[in-house]
């Protein structure tokens, strides 16, 4: 690449290559520009303007209002800030539950269906993948029926003597409910008195509502199939030799999975976690078809709030501002994740366990594995 660009463009037989390259990519660049870059830039402008939804946002009647829309959401003290805080709270709990659960489940399923001895692997792969290809609207509607107060899930629970909650209509936070079991109904004054984004700390710590928990289950159910596929692909690209070597060294199946297979899956794990994180922060269609933010605003998410404030309340600037704050949140968490999962040198302390003991101290050798285990705990 650098070699060709350094060459003077007019000389030689390859002179027109760059031009034709641009020519070939031009349609795609234009399409991307038209449907991606321009709308994004316009939305960015709207988030800094007082556009009210009539006529073009680029017309002369629309004024630049600086950070007004952002400050209304972040420090306004009014309903807008409170709603945004609630939406962030709901979505944060959603992410905290869905991302680890779906990653663990999809990895588990992938390891299961990747086993050579499993009969009918094709069937299981299809079965596990099936929820992912079904439309999210259809699955949401199905979920509404399953989790109805008299629905199938509560029937099942009643067989084991549990009176199921009224899932999609129950605004109580599950952590609050847990504390409620011990008679703690209101939090300490430190938590209830102080607020962040218009929502008290006690409410931030309340956990997802029962309704949101049903959505968490829905997300895990639908997406784990997709990510299972990614993990299968990752697993199949691993060579058998490392695992075999580990077997020769006497590692059992559990150790092989945690110490040999999983570290090699790091790139796939990063992909799955990142895609999961992005998908979770953008959750919209389930909310739109399911609960529209209810009960008690406990399933309100930033994506849905953005839609609602723009299309229903004509607060286009705030709607766009929410979208950009959401974008920054996603970028931030992706970077954090990248940093956490980055390849690092094995620390000296850990490394010691793998080192060959220096010669001349054969007596210490047998104790080495034992110390190694302790060091890792």
């Amino acid at each position, binding site marked *: 690449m650098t070699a060709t660009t350094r060459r003077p463009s007019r000389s030689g037989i390859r002179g027109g290559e760059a031009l034709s390259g641009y020519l070939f990519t031009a349609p795609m*660049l234009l399409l991307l520009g038209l449907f991606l870059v321009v709308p994004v830039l316009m939305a960015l402008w709207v988030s800094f303007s007082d556009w009210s939804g009539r*006529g073009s946002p680029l017309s002369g009647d629309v004024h630049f209002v600086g950070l007004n829309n952002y400050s209304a959401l972040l420090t306004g003290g009014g*309903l807008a800030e409170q*709603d945004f805080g609630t939406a962030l709270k709901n979505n944060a709990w959603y992410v905290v539950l869905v991302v680890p659960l779906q990653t663990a489940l999809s990895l588990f399923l992938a390891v299961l269906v990747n086993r050579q001895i499993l009969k009918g692997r094709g069937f299981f792969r299809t079965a596990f993948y099936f929820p992912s290809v079904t439309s999210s609207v259809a699955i949401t509607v199905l979920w509404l029926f399953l989790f109805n107060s008299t629905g199938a899930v509560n029937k099942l629970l009643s067989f084991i003597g549990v009176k199921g909650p009224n899932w999609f209509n129950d*605004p109580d936070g599950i952590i609050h409910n847990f504390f409620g079991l011990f008679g703690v109904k209101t939090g300490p004054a430190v938590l209830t008195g102080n607020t962040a984004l218009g929502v008290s700390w006690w409410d931030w710590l309340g956990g997802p509502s029962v309704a949101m928990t049903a959505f968490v289950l829905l997300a895990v159910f639908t997406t784990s199939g997709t990510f299972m596929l990614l993990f299968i692909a990752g697993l199949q690209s691993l060579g058998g030799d490392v695992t075999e070597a580990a077997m020769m060294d006497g590692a059992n199946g559990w150790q092989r999975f945690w110490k040999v297979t999983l570290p090699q899956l790091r790139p796939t794990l990063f992909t799955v976690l990142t895609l999961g994180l992005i998908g979770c922060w953008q959750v919209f269609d389930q909310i739109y078809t399911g609960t529209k933010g209810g009960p*008690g605003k406990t399933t309100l998410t930033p994506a849905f709030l953005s839609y609602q404030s723009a299309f229903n309340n*004509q607060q286009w600037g705030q709607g766009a501002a929410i979208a950009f704050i959401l974008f920054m949140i996603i970028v931030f968490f992706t970077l954090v994740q990248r940093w956490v999962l980055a390849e690092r040198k094995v620390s000296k302390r850990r490394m010691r366990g793998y080192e060959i003991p220096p010669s001349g101290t054969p007596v210490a050798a047998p104790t080495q594995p034992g110390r190694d285990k302790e060091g890792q705990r």
Partner: protein
Amino acid sequence: MQRRTTRWLVVGALAAAGALTLSACGSGFSSGSSTSGTGGLTSSKKALTVLIGSSGDAETKAVNSAVADWTKSSGTKATVSVASDLNQQLAQGFSAGKPADVFYLSTDALAGYASNGSLLAYGDQLKNKSDFYPSLVKSFTFDGKFYCAPKDFSTLALEINTDMWKAAGLTDADIPKTWDDLATVAKKLTTPQHVGLGIGGEYARIAAFMTQAGGNLMNADSTKATANSDANIKALDYVKTLIADGSLKYAKDLGAGWGGEAFGKGLAAMTIEGNWITGAMTNDYPNVKYTIAELPTGPAGKGTMQFTNCWGIAADSPNQAAALKLVEKLTSSSDQLAFSKAFGPMPSIKSAAATWKKDNPLLVPFLKGADYAKGVPTAKGAADVVTDFNSKIESLATGDPKTILDATQKNLEALVK
């Protein structure tokens, strides 16, 4: 390296410029409409588009045939399209500068569209202006201007399951006249199988009690927040005692989507709903026998809520004169009576009342409510506050009415500042 970056910048700029040129070809943006015609209205030969949010086939058919009649008599073409998400489609139309000419508009949306200039304030030019119920006209008045013609309306009344009523040993003389009566019969009607009164746990139902106590979230013009008034606290306290008695439950807690479903499924012996419930009962629960009564009188007299939509006309419409004519026809007595027959709502004009009462003797309690009904707050952003209020009132059973209303008061005051 630097050379590459500049190249990418050039390519990006070219792509953006090209895309902008293309989007400019799409027209829509910044198209000036020529305003000329009678009474400041635009007029042209252009066909009209009518955008409606339909409740079902019956409504679509009725509007279609009324508009087709008008096309025949006026010679101006008009097409009806049914929106799957009315708010979204309206918003898209307004931002593109090519909105539907005539459309359904809810009281919530009025303030937003009126304040950004999307709507034509044509109310005062209507020939039948004085025929509309004054409280409905108030619902569609913003900043002192009567914006659009109420297309119809509904009020809340009390629906009673007659079989359960008789089973509890009650007679016609027991139909509740006061809050105490209501509490008594609701208790009598509560059995392990069903609750006495099952209503939607939202402002749009519970506010009926507020109006009976003499309150509402805002004053009639929606210019002043009155959420934490004593009347409202009294109303919520009353509802709370009914919940505590076990004789009132929200539809959601009964496993139903709304009051009508709880009532139709026999989960509640009484409910408070509007006249739309009659359609649901005939279609979904034809075997349930029921009767309709006016809501009981509260400490401050009679009270109920009214709900209405209007026929909005777009400020950007190229043919406002024809649109106004169409709306006059659609709000005429004959058309409104036909709509009422097809899908239930009550005519918004006084001159149609007598005929309507004769046609629907069982539904008279709904129309009687028109005399004392109050509307929902219409200040810009009020819909959000109501949603917030709804989310709090869901936990009224364990909440404190004063705290709930104080929070709502604060939010409403922020709107009218």
